């Protein structure tokens, strides 16, 4: 077999060597404490989670990972449609910067983590696989999306399960899903709760359907609060949308995890990128900012809503948002003036909830076409030293034990820790997933 012309005679040895060093790296990584980068306020309650998916693949240079083209490169290495002075930063935290498509996020950057340089795959395996990987932190089809995994890890019954406006990846988890449309429609359709309660109260044995009828009775207070909130918001000039349903479900106690897919934006700009993508991405981030803003307007104290002991926190302060897309886009324009899929780097925004100071984690860089073995420029994520948080920019810095690339499972692990959940125990991320250090206040 070793004589086969397509198999390198040392491939098995190289494989074993690589496997051994990888195992050592993972083993040492497990000794690291479960900590995170970014300041985290102590939480006496577990926050809610909203996973926001923006399908299509966002050019991160226009949003979360703004770049200034290096000297000595040109448009054929990286096409950037903005000048450095169009990059915006938070007024008090200058290191929190975003490109011109994400200026709507600026007011929230002091309460956000931006993960840059996330490596999805070495090669492009399509939108669905990458978005699912970003949403589940696991490409094996076993896990639910992060929203589902949060619900699964808590093991606390939630009347609505995961609130979502699209199909939710559930993997092998047996979880209920309630569509936001159903919640909003319930305002305008007859509510059979009272009718069903009477049937339930009239007696009968124990059965799955009887248990669901009892669930209606048990959730009567929460359901009433949900309806009350939605009716208040319905009176506003802005029509009710998916995130209103999620917010009402959280505030009323009907759910603790939601998933919102932003489907109506055309981010997959394989042609005419300069004219179309920036505008589309602006609308994505404006939408995200609108969701954040709305959550900030809702006073919320866990279990103590409107009580005298309220400390003035909002629902935004008790909700962790995770915004993901499939991948970034190639740095240069193709023949159709478009940008294609680039799984070598990606960015994720984590905001709200327990994050009390903004921080950028990870970094990407441009490999000009002259330095690329393929002859085409590449925009790639850089490895991290997980013990220090520093980005590794040269091979000489690479220490084997704590250096690795940033992958979706590392981001998910961070999210889990922010939620007070160790995703390694539930199998959401591998036991060997590297952890990130945390600067606690």
């Amino acid at each position, binding site marked *: 077999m070793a004589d086969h012309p397509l198999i390198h005679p040392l491939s098995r040895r190289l494989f074993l060597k690589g496997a051994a060093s990888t195992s050592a790296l993972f083993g040492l990584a497990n000794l690291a404490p479960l900590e995170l980068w970014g300041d985290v306020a102590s939480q006496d309650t577990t926050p809610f989670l909203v996973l926001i998916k923006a399908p299509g693949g966002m050019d991160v240079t226009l949003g979360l990972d703004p770049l200034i083209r290096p000297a000595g490169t040109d448009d054929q290495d990286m096409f950037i449609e903005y000048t450095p002075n169009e990059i915006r930063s938070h007024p008090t935290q200058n290191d929190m910067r975003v490109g011109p498509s994400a200026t709507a996020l600026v007011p929230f950057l002091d309460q956000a983590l931006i993960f840059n340089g996330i490596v999805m795959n070495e090669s492009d395996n399509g939108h669905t696989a990458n978005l699912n990987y970003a949403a589940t932190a696991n490409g094996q089809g076993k896990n639910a999306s992060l929203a589902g995994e949060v619900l699964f890890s808590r093991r606390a019954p939630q*009347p609505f399960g995961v609130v979502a406006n699209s199909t*939710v990846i559930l993997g092998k988890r047996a979880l*209920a899903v309630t569509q936001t449309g159903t919640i909003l429609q319930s305002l305008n359709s007859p509510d059979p709760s009272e*009718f069903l309660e*009477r*049937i339930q109260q009239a007696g009968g044995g124990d059965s*799955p*359907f009887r248990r669901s009828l009892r669930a209606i009775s048990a959730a009567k207070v929460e359901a009433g609060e949900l309806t009350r909130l939605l009716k208040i918001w319905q009176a506003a000039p802005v029509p009710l949308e998916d995130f209103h349903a999620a917010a009402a479900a959280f505030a009323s106690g009907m759910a603790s995890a939601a998933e919102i897919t932003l489907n109506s934006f055309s981010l997959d700009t394989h042609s005419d990128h300069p004219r179309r993508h920036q505008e589309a991405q602006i609308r994505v981030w404006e939408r995200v900012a609108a969701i954040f803003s709305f959550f900030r307007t809702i006073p919320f104290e866990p279990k103590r809503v409107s009580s005298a002991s309220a400390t003035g926190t909002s629902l935004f302060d008790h909700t962790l948002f995770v915004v993901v897309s499939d991948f970034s886009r190639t740095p240069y324009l193709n023949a159709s003036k478009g940008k294609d899929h680039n799984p070598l780097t990606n960015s994720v925004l984590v905001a709200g909830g327990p994050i009390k100071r903004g921080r950028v984690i990870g970094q990407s860089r441009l490999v000009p076409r002259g330095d690329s073995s393929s002859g085409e420029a590449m925009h790639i994520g850089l490895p991290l030293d997980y013990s220090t948080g520093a980005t590794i920019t040269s091979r000489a810095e690479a220490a084997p034990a704590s250096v690795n690339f940033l992958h979706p499972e590392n981001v998910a692990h961070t999210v889990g820790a922010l939620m007070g959940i160790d995703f390694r125990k539930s199998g959401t991320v591998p036991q060997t997933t590297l952890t990130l250090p945390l600067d606690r206040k």
Partner: protein
Amino acid sequence: MRLRFSPAFAVGFAILLTGFSFTERWMRYPRPDEILMIFQDRFPDGFIHPAMEMNSCRQLTTDNRSFLGDNRPADGKPIVAEPNLHFAKWYASCLADAVGNEVAFLIRRQSQAQAGSVDSKVLEWLPAPTEPSLREEMRDLIHKAGTQQKPANPAVSISPELRIYIVTQVVARLIGPDPVLNGKGPLFSAQQLRQQVLASVDALDFSEAGFQSMGFKTRLQHSESSIFGYLAATMLVVGLQDEFLMQ
């Protein structure tokens, strides 16, 4: 094409229903369109309203598929372990629509019948009791419903004996006669089920808000004053029995 009852169809339909899984017993709830088929099967002279509002009950959409215990393609197991509260609400609403359409059809038939007569289709749904006083009471109530003569107090307008008769008829029609019911296991009795249905329908108080909140008030314009309201309430309660759902 109108579905007609036949033993072969019943066996085939039972296989169809039990071939999928939902609970620990690996049974599942029939889809609402299957419920409509059951109604068409058991009440073949009825009229399934093709109105727009039934569409949400007939189709699996992203809005309702998670209520139904969808099976995972990978292993065929149900996606949710038990029906959630939204399932119960949505299911009851769909069933209420189906029942409302069926009974509204009967009311229209009776309204169009000659004065003083009882439409023959109505009698197919509610066969006349053999006991003379019950037979007379039922004819009188059906006639009043057709002529819109509303009794002053509809809640007590139907005697306990006639209520039991209606419950017995609907249970036998939708779930099965006594030998079938008593064959469901040593802990199950037909008499117990009828008492349970009777208690639920009476607790429902079909003339009051609990019943009207289901949208019946609009659909069954005369239901609060007629025997048809009680019939509809009974069909709805029986339709929500596990013995019906999980056959």
